[in-house]
Every structure is written in structure tokens, then in C-alpha cells.
């Protein structure tokens, strides 16, 4: 599959290009950052960004093949519950459990995919949303085995703090690298072709159902992996995993960051996690400034922030179809042009 593209020289060439340097710098910064700032709260935020990078990238991979899921929370939850329950009931070490959880999630994803890949975009969105509701119901119904209704503490995966941060960062780098390699391969080419036009893709001899199924299974694998890591990190899991909010998060992250790009979900999850973590600080100010206007609400902050997020999402989709990433690319191109013009005389 990677016959020509990834010989040693080619990899070296990629690493020597500007793009390669940016990637290397990004990896180096993410690994070295905690050496300078060891505040536990900031480490926690960075760990969340790493985990959500995995989750958003998994969603984005599905979107790259032209499919949209509104129920990825189901797979997040399946991954999380499988890993935690295996560790508690059968003593499976969580480090293996997270991969079993991911594989189990991919298995369920395969079953959903087999039946649904032929559906059009919005039908698939509906079915996946419905599946997350069904998963929530099943987990609550079989509470004797899942203990999902009240929830339970999840066992330790890696020591909290720095070790967990490095673990999450390494897994997320591997995930992003794997997705990058997939998108560079023949399979990735097929995904892009299907995304652009299903009919034409099948006319050129691409087995669209097969490749859509691949995308679905791969995506649900990484979503399950993200879920397993996330709920070991949160130290607690309950049926609330399946909330629609969790399904919409990766979507918003991918869209805001830049749909269909490798770096989009990373940037998007960084933006969203920062907004989630830092903006509650402005709630007090919002409350003082706006509470006379809205006497019906006791705490004005959260709805105002969510309203802002909604407006931001619509503006991004309407005016920046490739997300914040495209803005960064434009700035980068502009700077390069300006610098070159400066060099000429």
C-alpha cells in the first residue's frame, strides 16, 4: 500500500520540508512543554486536548469519506465501559483493556456500518444518533452487568499527572500519524473520491460500500480508544457518556478546526477545550454585565457562552468552510510571500 511514497529518502524529504519542521516542532513542544510549566491544572487541560484530538480525529476520518455521524458518543461509551468493566470484573490490565475496548467498539461499528453505509448522509446521521440513544437505553436496562445508571469509579490506567499526559500525547501522535498515513494511501484516495462524488467514485471502479465500511470501522476504533482513555482519565464513568453533547463535540472540533484536514481536529480540540476550561472565569463578569437584561436566568454565563459557540460555529461553516486551519494557512502564505518580496532586492 505504501510502496513508493514512504521510502527512507521520501520520509527524510518530508521531514526537511517546512511542513515537516512544523510537525517536528509541534511534537517537540508538546513533549517538552510540561518541563517548563508543571501546574497540574494546565497539565490536565493539555491531557484533555490530547484525548480529544484522538476523538475528533476519529470523527474527522469518517467525515473525510463523506459520512457524518451524530452518535459517536455511543462508541466513546462502548470503549470506556468495555475497558473499565474488563479491568474490574476480569482483572484485565487497563493498558490492554483500552485496546480491547477500541476493538470492541470497532466491532460494533462494523455491524452498524454493514447495514448503513449505503444510506445517504443525513440518513446515516439519523441512524447513528438513534444508535447512541439505543446504546444508552441498553446500558441502563442491563444495569446489573454494566452498573451504568449510577456509574462507578474506573481503575487507574497510568499514574495521573505527567505520566498520563505523556501517555495521552503519545497515543494521540500515533493516532494522527496513522490517519495521515491512511489518507496518503490508496484507501485515503478512495475516501476522498467518495467524499467528492459517490457516483463518480463507483464509476471509476472504487468499491464505495467497502471503503465506506473501512472508514466506519477505523473511525469507531479510534473513538473507542479515545473513550477508554478518557474515562480512565476522568476516573468515573456512567450512562451520561451517551449524551448528545458528547456526539456533537468531535463534530464541532473538526468543523471549527478544519474539516477534512489532518491538523484541523487538533486545532479544533485545542480551541474547544480551552474555551471549556478557561471561559468559566469570565462568567462572573458576564453575570455582572448582563444579568439585569435577563432576569429569568440565575447564572447568565453558561448560556451566553454556548450562544457564542453556536454563532461561532455558523460563522465558521458559512465563511470559513475549511475552518480555522484555512485562516492559519492564509496567514502563513501571506507571511511567506511578504518575506520573499523582502528578500528580492
Amino acid at each position, binding site marked *: 500500500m505504501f510502496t513508493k511514497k514512504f521510502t527512507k529518502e521520501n520520509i527524510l524529504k518530508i521531514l526537511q520540508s517546512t511542513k515537516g519542521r512544523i510537525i517536528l516542532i509541534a511534537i517537540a513542544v508538546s513533549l517538552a512543554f510540561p518541563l517548563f510549566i508543571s501546574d497540574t491544572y494546565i497539565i490536565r487541560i493539555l491531557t484533555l486536548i490530547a484525548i480529544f484530538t484522538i476523538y475528533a480525529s476519529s470523527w474527522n476520518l469518517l467525515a473525510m469519506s463523506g459520512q457524518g455521524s451524530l452518535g459517536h458518543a455511543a462508541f466513546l461509551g462502548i470503549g470506556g465501559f468495555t475497558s473499565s468493566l474488563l479491568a474490574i470484573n476480569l482483572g484485565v490490565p487497563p493498558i490492554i483493556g483500552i485496546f480491547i475496548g477500541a476493538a470492541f467498539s470497532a466491532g460494533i461499528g462494523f455491524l452498524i456500518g454493514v447495514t448503513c453505509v449505503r444510506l445517504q448522509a*443525513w440518513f446515516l446521521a*439519523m441512524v447513528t444518533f438513534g444508535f447512541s440513544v439505543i446504546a444508552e437505553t441498553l446500558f441502563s436496562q442491563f444495569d446489573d452487568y454494566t452498573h451504568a445508571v449510577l456509574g462507578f469509579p474506573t481503575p487507574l490506567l497510568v499514574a495521573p499527572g505527567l505520566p498520563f499526559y505523556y501517555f495521552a500525547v503519545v497515543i494521540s501522535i500515533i493516532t494522527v500519524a496513522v490517519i495521515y498515513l491512511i489518507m496518503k494511501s490508496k484507501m485515503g484516495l478512495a475516501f476522498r473520491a467518495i467524499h467528492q462524488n459517490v457516483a463518480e467514485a463507483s464509476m471509476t471502479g472504487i468499491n464505495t460500500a467497502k471503503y465506506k465500511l473501512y472508514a466506519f470501522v477505523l473511525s469507531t476504533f479510534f473513538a473507542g480508544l479515545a473513550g477508554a482513555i478518557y474515562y480512565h482519565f476522568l476516573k468515573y464513568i456512567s450512562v451520561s457518556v451517551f449524551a448528545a453533547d458528547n456526539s456533537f463535540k468531535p463534530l464541532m472540533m473538526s468543523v471549527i478546526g478544519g474539516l477534512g484536514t489532518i491538523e484541523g481536529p487538533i486545532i479544533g480540540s485545542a480551541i474547544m477545550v480551552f474555551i471549556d476550561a478557561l471561559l468559566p472565569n469570565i462568567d462572573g463578569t458576564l453575570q455582572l454585565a448582563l444579568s439585569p437584561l435577563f432576569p429569568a436566568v440565575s447564572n447568565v454565563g453558561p448560556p451566553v457562552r*454556548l450562544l457564542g459557540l*453556536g454563532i461561532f*460555529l*455558523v460563522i465558521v461553516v*458559512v465563511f470559513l468552510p475549511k475552518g480555522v486551519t484555512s485562516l492559519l494557512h492564509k496567514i502563513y502564505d501571506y507571511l511567506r510571500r511578504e518575506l520573499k518580496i523582502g528578500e528580492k532586492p
Partner: protein
Amino acid sequence: MIDATTLILTLVWGVAIGCIYILLATGLNLIFGVMKLVNFAHGELLMIGAYVCFSISTAFGVNAYIALFLSMGIVALIGVAVERLAFRRVLGTDKLNEIFVSLGLILIFDNIAVLIWGEKIKQITSPFENMSLQLGGVAISYDRLISLAFVAAILVGLMFLIKKTKIGRAMRATSQKSQSAMLMGINIEHIYIFTFALGAALAGAAGSLYGIIAPFTPYIGAIPTIKAFAIIILGGLGSIPGAIIGGLLYGIAEQSAVIFFGGIWRDAVAFSLLIIVLILRPKGLFGEKGD
């Protein structure tokens, strides 16, 4: 064992809830049929409709069923704004963009409602509160019967509009082939605005009826949207009689699930039904052939 009274009550409840879903589904179906647009935020228009009706009826002491018409008009205007400012700009681009815009709109509407009306549960006071019709041991509240009548009247009016009037003919032409319709001198931009406003007005009516027969919060919108989609899929895309049959089937299936399996199965059973139908008949039960 479940006795006959329970069964009849289930049926009545199912039909009443089904009616509200039918209105919502018909609006969605119109918008989808004419504009080929999927508005996942349609349920938020229902929620706004309920609140507008609530505000009008409490602030001015108007009969809730008269406030319903005002609410329909206001929600239609909101629909026009939504179509012009958001959906118009992504129409014809990637299908996924419509889903993203809808999600943004869901956040916007939910939180505007929270800011204006607060998060507390509200219910519209009906002029026929606590009055019910006694039918052989079964009590059916007047509000449910009136909402049934309203839905029937609105649907008949809508059928007349679509089948008999000039603008209805233009809408049908646009839904069949927008480019040819344009060549025939139809201003499809105007048709789009009109269709979206009509769909939104139906959602406003659905919301007002919902608010009369059940309590509501700013977060009630999401689930009815998905259910309306399920109904459209059950009934087939673009078919109004299909939506009526689908809506009634759905409402009854949902209520039966609650009675036979318990409350937590309410949504799951309905979605299972939907998924099974989609797998067996990807175009819906009564769907037309072709795309």
C-alpha cells in the same frame, strides 16, 4: 395483563403526540422536498413556538388557541431570517455543512430561549384546563381533541395550498426540478423563502400545541426533530400522506413501548423501528423510487 382502557388510552395518547410530530414532520418534509435541505434545527423552532405562544397568552391574557396563530406568524418570520442568514449560504455545498449549520442553530436557539425565558419548566394554560370528555370509562381531555382538530384543519389547508394554488404549483415544480422551474419563470428564491416560512409556521403551530398538552423547557427541541425525521423516513421523503401515516404509527409505537416495556424504552424502540425500516427499505415505507 393490560386491560382495554389502558389500550384505548395508549392509542389516544399516541395519536395526540403523533399529531404534533406529524405537523413538525410535514414542515421538515416540505423544506426537504422543495429545497433539498435538511434542517436538523427544526425542533428548536417548535420549542420557540411553544415559548412565543406561552408569552403571548400569559402577557396579554389571550386564549392560547388564538395565541397559536400569532406564534405561527412569528416563528415563520424567524424561519425567514434563518433561511436568509444561515442556510441560504451553504445550500448546494457539501451536505454535511447543512448538518453543521443546524447544530450551530440548535445552540443559538436553545440558549436564546434560556436567556429570555429561563430554564424552569413551563406549560401554556389552556382555556379548557382539566376538562375532559367521558367515553365509556375513558377520559380524553378536550385539549387533545382540539389539537387533533387543529392538526387536521392545518393539514387540509396545506394540501389545498399545495395542490390548488399558484404558489403551491410553483413549489411542486421547484421540488421536481429547480432549474427547469427557474426557466419557466418561477423565482425560486422566493419559493425557498416561502417554503421555509411555511415549514417554520407549522413547527410554530406544533410547538404551541405541544406547550398546551405537555410541559416544556428550552431543551425539548432535539428529540422531536429526530422523531420527525424518523416519521419522514417511515412515510417516505416528500410525501405528505406518508408523513401522516408515519406519524400516527410512530406515536402509537412510542406509547405502546412505554406501556409494555417501561419509560426508558420510549426512544429506543422507536429508533429501532426506524433503523429496521431503513435497512429493509432505504427509501422509506411509502417512499417514491429514485432519488
